[in-house]
């Protein structure tokens, strides 16, 4: 029960619930700024279902990844803005 996986968030290793969605895991870790808007506002998840594009982060080097659609994997590298 309550298995965890380790992700690397902005260079730091963090433990998150195994099987959780990346957006959910980051929110649980207390992350509130996921990306910067074109005018520099910090934004975070809004629609939770892949439509609004507000939760985009860089995952394993791939920018603009909608993290509400991605399941956490061990050793996943995540960068927020």
């Amino acid at each position, binding site marked *: 029960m*309550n298995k965890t996986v380790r992700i690397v968030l902005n260079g730091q290793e963090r433990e998150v619930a195994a099987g959780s969605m990346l957006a959910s*895991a980051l929110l*649980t870790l207390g992350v509130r700024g996921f990306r910067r808007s074109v005018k520099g506002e910090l*934004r975070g*998840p809004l*629609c*939770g*279902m892949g439509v609004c*594009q507000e939760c985009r982060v860089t995952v394993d080097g791939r920018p603009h990844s909608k993290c509400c659609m991605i399941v956490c994997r061990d050793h996943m590298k995540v960068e927020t803005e």
Partner: protein
Amino acid sequence: MTRRDCEVLVLGAGPAGIAAACCAGESGRQVILTDENPACGGQIWRAQRGAMHTRADVQHAADLWLTRLGRCGASVLSGATAFDADAALHFVRFETDRGVEEIHYSALILATGARERLLPFPGWTRSGVYAAGGLQALVKGGFRIDGQRILVAGTGPLLLAAAGMLGAHGGEVLMILEQAGWRSLTRFGLHLAGFPDKLLQAATLMVQAGVVPYRPGWWVCEAGGNGPLEWVAITDGKRTVRVDCDMLALGYGLVPNSELARLMGCRTTGSSAAPGAHFVDVDARQKTSLDGVFACGEITGIGGAELSLAEGSVAGYAACGHWHEVDRVAPLRNCLARQVHAMDSAFALRDELRAAVTPDTLVCRCEDVPAAELAGFGSWREAKLGSRCGMGPCQGRTCGPAVEFVWGWSAESVRPPITPVRLGSMSDQP
């Protein structure tokens, strides 16, 4: 690019798509069911992740259908985002982790569901402001909200469901603001009286939300804080009150995800009562205006999971030409549809919601376009070209319905790719 062929292609693995795939698969057809998400279930049956628990009745329905899906012979393609389609050449293109897949079909069933309608007001872009269903999805995905103070606001019965769910997962729901006034709600209640099942459902939802103040005739006019959300200003048009909270969950009804249907040329119908909603027109057999293309679930009209299952069953059998089975399952769909549409008028959006949009309020969240920059334009097209409103990665899915409500401009035709894809996916030819 890889190419695949099937007899029946079903897009969207929520209740409507699952029912359609089951009925077509059990009819002996070779079926492919696709979804953008990592797992089947759609929003309502979204898998609970990260050691969360599920409401027993919802889980039961989901288990029954997912078991049936597993046995019907349909193959499931998850994590596949449809970005282009051609009705004349009978194919849909998907972006997947493995590259582009082009799936050719004899019959196509569209069950692409709905998203939440959000309306702008100062501060709605702050981190901590969520779509109500979006917050539910995030919680199901493993977001722990224990002890978080949550304000739920917007319109419609889904607010009650959201509040109940968020409370059950440890959130402290402070209040539910329903923009419709008591008078509209009474009308809604009267409509419900004729439909015992719906009354029961609504009552159940009310009980779940029981201990939480329910305030008809109130709405949010500002979300404030030093960075992330710290407080919300609420109003009934006469008074304005500030409420401290950690999260705001918003929902002003649902808008169908009919972009792919519109790209393919399916006829749709809009309604001034549902700004931004282009519902796909279907006949009694769930067939769209295009031959061989069927549609079911929320893209044909907002009706919930039960109606979606009934419509999906009709579409699944109709796509196989099994008219006897269609006639068997159609009466249930007709009965559910009558009940559902009786409640449409009760939650009409009040005019004052437009006044919450101040000149500085960002309307387009992708391109950060404030309301002031939209002054002077005469159409959605002019506004897009002149201000970049709706030109960002969400392609107007969030701001489009809001713009239609506030300025009255309806969205224009849809072009491929209907969602952002990697550059390579566009040039990846068979």
